[in-house]
């Protein structure tokens, strides 16, 4: 069973990602975080195969959460998802320890491929 945590403050985006993951992966459990604090809390208190997080969220945002998650559980893969273009933020995200960065406009295919790639690498 694949365990995926998604963090985005827009409920309709979370719903879309959840639906996409349920369609694409046969055995998957998806949990959601609506803000930075919930993301950090869930990320550190449970085991995840991958965390998919937005950058802009109330309470500090994706980069802040990424730093906290990587300090405590460096092996949990984090994929950053953003409306910002990759050329502006991808490098900063990977420097901060993220396993990947994708632009929201490349969804849905981009997300599924990125998740598969990151999980394969971890094995």
């Amino acid at each position, binding site marked *: 069973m694949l365990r995926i945590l998604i963090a985005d403050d*827009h409920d*309709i*985006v979370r*719903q*879309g990602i959840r639906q996409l993951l349920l369609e694409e992966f046969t055995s998957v459990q998806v949990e959601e975080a609506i803000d930075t604090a919930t993301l950090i809390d869930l990320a550190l208190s449970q085991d995840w195969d991958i965390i998919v997080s937005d950058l802009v969220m109330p309470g500090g945002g994706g980069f802040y959460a990424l730093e906290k998650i990587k300090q405590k559980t460096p092996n949990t893969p984090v994929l950053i998802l953003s409306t910002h273009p990759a050329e502006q933020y991808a490098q900063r995200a990977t420097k901060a320890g993220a396993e990947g960065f994708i632009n929201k*406009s490349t969804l849905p295919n981009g997300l599924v491929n990125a998740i598969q790639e990151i999980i394969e690498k971890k094995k």
Partner: protein
Amino acid sequence: MLKILIADDHAIVRKGLKQVILEEYPSAVIGEAADAEALLSQVIENEWNIVICDMNMPGRSGLDALNQIKHAAPNLPVLIMSMYPEDQYALRVLKAGASGYLGKDHVHDDIIKAIQTLQLGKKFITPSIAEKLASTLGQDTSVQSHETLSDREFDVFKLLASGKSVSEIAAQLSLSATTVSTYRSRIMEKMGIQSNAGLTRYALEKKLI
């Protein structure tokens, strides 16, 4: 049978919205459009009960698309959704003929209520928008300067404020550079602002971009 057309440039938002609607209306027919051009041709080619349209899509803005939809199908209810705070845009889109306005934060909670209201031929407004509407009654002197802009001027204003050049805006809105320049000077005159940086500062202060 309920036929709903969803226009948003983010596939994941369309997917989420579709899912929420289908949970409530399993037999609904959902059409999708990724930009304003596809939205307009779908409106012209097919019959819909409701259009749900994002305010910000590549190319023409949602406001521009709304005007065109109202021209092509005046009785088709259009619900506009946006990432922007409700109080800044709601009045403008309602004035332009939209049947409702939803901030994307509220989509999940309010979309079904909004669809039901629109089906009754009524407008859907959230309590915070109703409050804003009430507070504007009889207060013409306090109209903010961006509210005096026409819809097209407002689109150009937002693009200028977000750092786009006149030629980029001309290309994006399919206008000539001269027309955009004319809009620019009219916007600055109406708003009493002398530079693009001033427009940017105003837009940031009012949370318009």
